[in-house]
C-alpha cells in the first residue's frame, strides 16, 4: 500500500526537480544570449578600437579592394544562382511529377546543401581553374559560391510557390491562361517576396564564405582603380582576375603577421565589417519575412 507520506515525498521531489530543471533551462537560455552579445560585441568593439583611417583605403593596408571583391563576387554568384535556382524551384513545384525524377532532384539538392564547402571549393578548383587552365579568378569563385547557394534558393522558391493558395492557380487557368502563363504572371509575382528573402539569406551567407574560395577566387588581389578596360587583369570589373574576399583576407592575415605589422588590426576590422554585413542582411531578410507574414495573415 502506498502511504500518503510517500506520495507527498514523491511529489515534493518531482517539484524540486522541476524547479531545478527550469532554472537550468533559464540559465542555458541566458547563457547563449549573453554569449552572442559578447561575441558580436567583442568583434565589433575590436574592429572599432583597432581602426585606423588607412583601413578604408584601397591599398595594402586597407580593405577597400577586398570589400569590393566580396560584394562583386556575391553579385556575380547571384547572377548565376538566382535564375537557375528559381527556375529549378518552379520546375519542382509545378512541372515535375511525383516520381523518380523529382525524388532524385530532391536527393541532389539535399546532397548539394550538405556538401562541405571545402569540397565544393576543390570541385571548383578542378573544373573552373585546372580544367580551363585559368588563374585564380572571381568568376570561378562566384560559380563555387553559386553551387553553395543553389539549394537554398531552389528550396525557398519551391516552398514559396507550393504555399500559395490553390485558388490563384485555378483562377488563372480557368481564365484560359496556359500553365506557364499562370506561373509567369500569377504564381511567380505573388511568391516573389518570399523568394527575395531567400536570396538575401543566400547573399548573406556568400559574404562569409571562405573555404570554397581558397582555391577558386584566390588569396590575393591587385586592382588598379584608374584602369577601366574590362579585359585588363587589374580592372576592378574584370571578373577573370584574382579576387580575394574579406573572409579570405582574415584567413590570409592570420599567417601574414610577420609580413604586415597591421595584420591583426586588418583582420579585426574585416571581421567587424563582415559581421555588420551579415547582421544587416539577416535583419533585412527578417524584416521582409515579417512583412510578408503580416500581409498574408491579413488576407
Amino acid at each position: 500500500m502506498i502511504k500518503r507520506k510517500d506520495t507527498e515525498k514523491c511529489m515534493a521531489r518531482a517539484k524540486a526537480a522541476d524547479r531545478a530543471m527550469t532554472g537550468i533551462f533559464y540559465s542555458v537560455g541566458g547563457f547563449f544570449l549573453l554569449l552572442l552579445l559578447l561575441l558580436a560585441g567583442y568583434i565589433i568593439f575590436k574592429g572599432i578600437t583597432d581602426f585606423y583611417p588607412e583601413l578604408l583605403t584601397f591599398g595594402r593596408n586597407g580593405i577597400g579592394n577586398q570589400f569590393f571583391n566580396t560584394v562583386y563576387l556575391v553579385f556575380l554568384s547571384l547572377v548565376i544562382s538566382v535564375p537557375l535556382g528559381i527556375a529549378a524551384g518552379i520546375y519542382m513545384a509545378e512541372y515535375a511529377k511525383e516520381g523518380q525524377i523529382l525524388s532524385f532532384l530532391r536527393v541532389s539538392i539535399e546532397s548539394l546543401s550538405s556538401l562541405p564547402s571545402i569540397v565544393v571549393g576543390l570541385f571548383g578548383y578542378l573544373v573552373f581553374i585546372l580544367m580551363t587552365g585559368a588563374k585564380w579568378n572571381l568568376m570561378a569563385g562566384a560559380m563555387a559560391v553559386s553551387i553553395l547557394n543553389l539549394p537554398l534558393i531552389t528550396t525557398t522558391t519551391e516552398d514559396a510557390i507550393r504555399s500559395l493558395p490553390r485558388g490563384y492557380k485555378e483562377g488563372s487557368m480557368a481564365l484560359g491562361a496556359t500553365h506557364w502563363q499562370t506561373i509567369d504572371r500569377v504564381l511567380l509575382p505573388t511568391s516573389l517576396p518570399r523568394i527575395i528573402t531567400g536570396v538575401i539569406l543566400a547573399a548573406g551567407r556568400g559574404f562569409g564564405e571562405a573555404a570554397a574560395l581558397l582555391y577558386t577566387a584566390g588569396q590575393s588581389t591587385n586592382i588598379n582603380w584608374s584602369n577601366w578596360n574590362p579585359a585588363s587583369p587589374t580592372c576592378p570589373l574584370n571578373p577573370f582576375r584574382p579576387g580575394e574576399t574579406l573572409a579570405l583576407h582574415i584567413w590570409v592575415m592570420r599567417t601574414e603577421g610577420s609580413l604586415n605589422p597591421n595584420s591583426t588590426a586588418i583582420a579585426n576590422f574585416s571581421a567587424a565589417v563582415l559581421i555588420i554585413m551579415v547582421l544587416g542582411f539577416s535583419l533585412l531578410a527578417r524584416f521582409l519575412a515579417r512583412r510578408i507574414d503580416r500581409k498574408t495573415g491579413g488576407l
Partner: protein
Amino acid sequence: MTKQRSGGLGPQNSTAYRLKKEYLGRGAVTVCGILIILLTLSIGIFLLVKGTGTFTKYHHSVWEFLFSADWSPMDRADQGGGTVGAAIYICGTFLTCGLALLIAAPFSLAAAVFMTEISPKTGSRLFQPAVEIFVGIPSVVYGWIGLTVLVPFIRDVFGAKMGGFSVLAAGIVLAVMIFPTITTVSADAIRSVPWDYRNAAYGMGSTRWQVIYHIVFPAARPGIFTGIILGLSRAVGEALAVAMVIGKTRAFPANLLSPTNNLTAAIAADMGNSADGGEHNLALWSMALLLFSFSMLFIFIIHRISRKGRDRDKA
C-alpha cells in the same frame, strides 16, 4: 487577351501559340532542374575519379589510407612510392567533432527546450533571431575569434604546451558553430509534438519537467537526432575555423590540450602547393572523397530516421 475564347478552337490551341506561351518556359525550367541533377552527379563523379586515384593509380590499399598513420606521399606528378596513411587526419576529425557534439548537444537541447516549452515568447522574439545571427557569423570569423581569444585563453589557463592550439580549442569553436543547427532543428521537432500529449500528462498531475522528459523528448526524438546529425555534418565539413586553432601538427593528440590535424585543415593547407595528379595531390582528393562519403552517410541516416518516424506515426 480579348482574342482568347473558351473551347477547343481558340488561338491558344495552335501549336505556335502554345510553343510560345507554354513549352518555352516549361522547357527552360525543366532544363534547369535537370542541370542541378547533372551538377550534383558531376561533383560526385569528379570526386570519385580523383579520389580513387590513390588506390588505382598508385596502388595503395584502402586499409592503408584509413588506418595507417604513416603519411609521407611523394609530391611529384606521376611518381608514387610514398605512404598515404591518413589515420591522424581522420582521427583528428573524429575527435574534434565528437568533442564538439559532446559540448553542443546538451546545451542545444536545453536551449531548444527553453525557447519552445519554458519561454516561447522570448524564444520567438529574442532567441530565434539570436540563433539566426549565430548561423550567419562566417566561419572564418569564428576561427579568428578562436585564434585570438580562445587559444591564448587555453594556453594561459591550462598551460597547454603548444601555445593553446589544441583539440579542445577546435572542439569549442565547432561546438559554437553547430549549436544553432541542433537548436533550430530540435526546437522544430519539439514544437511539432501535439499539445494533446502534454495536456494528457499535465492532466495526470505531471510537473513541467516530467512532461518534458517523459513525453516531449521521446516524441521529438527523431527530430532531435536529425538535428544532431545535421550539426555533426556541419562540424565534419568545417575547414578554415578548425584549421586556425587545431595547430596542424601531424601527430595523434596525447590529450585534449595537444594539437593535431584533421581532414579539412589538411586539404585547405596543402591542396594549393601539391603537384596536380601527384601522389600527395590524389591522397588529398581521397580525403575529400572521404568527406563527401561522410556527408552522404549523414543524409542516409537522416532519411532512415525520418522514414522510421513516419512509420511510427502511421502505426
